[in-house]
């Protein structure tokens, strides 16, 4: 008896197959949801994180806010940032002579302090996990995410980004003397 009831139930359940066809048929007639990428773009690219970029000083668009404190380097879990502090500027001949004189006189020569800015800011995008710790912990807010999310290359070296050069390129400034 139970077996027969089960068989009858199976027959009535066959209707579910028709219901399934109805669903897919209905979806077939609806418009597509695909965004055809090269011709169209999705609307919310702005909140998607691209590779890091430096934020410029409000006064000088070619100079970063960065004070080379190396906080970002130490907080980065993947070690993808390399920042070199700027060296003190070369003393002029008069200053050099003064320093020599001071040394001879047994005094400590007055050294020029190094400027608080990076001389190199290298960022290896291939290692970065875009976690946001560097940007959050930067004391001067010098790091942000770019919208350049389509960065592609066939060579791993292409992902070693020189962020200072990138900043200058965005500001339209010429590279400093001594670098190409």
């Amino acid at each position: 008896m139970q077996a027969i009831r089960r068989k009858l139930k199976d027959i009535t359940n066959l209707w579910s197959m028709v219901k399934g066809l109805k669903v897919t048929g209905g979806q077939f007639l609806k418009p597509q949801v695909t965004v055809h990428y090269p011709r169209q773009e999705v609307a919310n690219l702005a909140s998607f994180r691209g590779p890091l970029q430096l934020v410029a000083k409000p006064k000088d668009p070619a100079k970063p806010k960065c004070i080379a404190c190396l906080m970002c380097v130490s907080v980065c879990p993947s070690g993808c940032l390399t920042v070199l502090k700027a060296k003190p500027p070369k003393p002029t001949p008069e200053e050099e002579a003064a320093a020599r004189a001071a040394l001879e006189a047994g005094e400590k020569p007055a050294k020029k302090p190094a400027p608080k800015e990076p001389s190199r800011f290298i960022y290896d995008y291939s290692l970065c996990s875009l976690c946001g710790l560097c940007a959050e912990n930067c004391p001067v807010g010098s790091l942000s995410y770019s919208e350049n999310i389509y960065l592609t290359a066939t060579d791993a070296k292409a992902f070693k980004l020189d962020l200072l050069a990138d900043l200058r390129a965005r500001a339209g400034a010429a590279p400093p003397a001594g670098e190409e």
Partner: protein
Amino acid sequence: MEATLLDPRMFRIVAAAMALAAFVGLNALVLVYLERKIAGHVQRRPGPFEVGPHGLLQPLADALKLIGKQLFRPAGADALLFWMAPVVSFIPVLPLFLPIPFDPDLVAMHVEPGLLLILAFTGINVLALCMAGWGSNNKWSLLGASRAVAQSVAYEIPLLMALLAVTFMHGSLNLSEIVEAQGAWPWQWNAFIQPVAFIVYFTCAVAETNRAPFDLPEAESELTAGFHTEYSGMGFGLFFLAEYANMIVVCAVATALFLGGWQGPFFSGWWWFLAKTYALLMVIIWFRWTYPRVRFDQLLNINWKWLLPLSMVNLMVTALVMKLF
């Protein structure tokens, strides 16, 4: 009458075979495109879109890719069986089309027992799958082949019985005669006189051509790719072509036997035949993108416990009715 090479009938067969080969190839291209487009639209995406306008040239690109790929045989595979299998699966496809009447005149060969010819040649496909599965030296292929054999053998019986019921009614195995015996309007078609036979036939046809939800021999998520796991390039291409050609054949037979063939309201002709065949093909494609796959033992249960008794009862009732009236 002795057949010689210059016999006009011989000439007709050769010409028909060439035309049919072209027909099969062209249809496979169309079907691949249709399948992918329907799948795309069912899933709310465009399907192939980049090659040619609306992806029209995609099947050609696919075919070129398959032809250009290296033919690869795994170590330890039986070379003879491995390379014969795709050929064996494709060759019977051409004779399958010979007796199919697209039009009263558009028949490659008027074969009196045309249905028998078709049924005989569809059986060869199983042999090919078996060879592919055994010859590949791959455990997944072997499992796929064993499934294919059990499935095809089981489903051929109710398929045959469903067709027998129709041939009982008309007393003929000739497809053209059966088509002519039906009328132009849907209620004169065999599908409405023999609905049980039609449903049984169509279910078995889906299973015979290894299409979802009965695609167990290639069950992607279980057997990786089943019997054609190890095939690449045109080895796979021939299986693929044969699968699509078989689909066309079973749908064409259904059209001829159950849906009135070339006859239709207003304008009879081959376009009705093609339209009906393609409608059935689209239903099969629609099934594939809707249903999950049945399990192996359930597949056989459906056959032995449902389709076989159903088709037998149908056959007996048909015989009884024929005898009485």
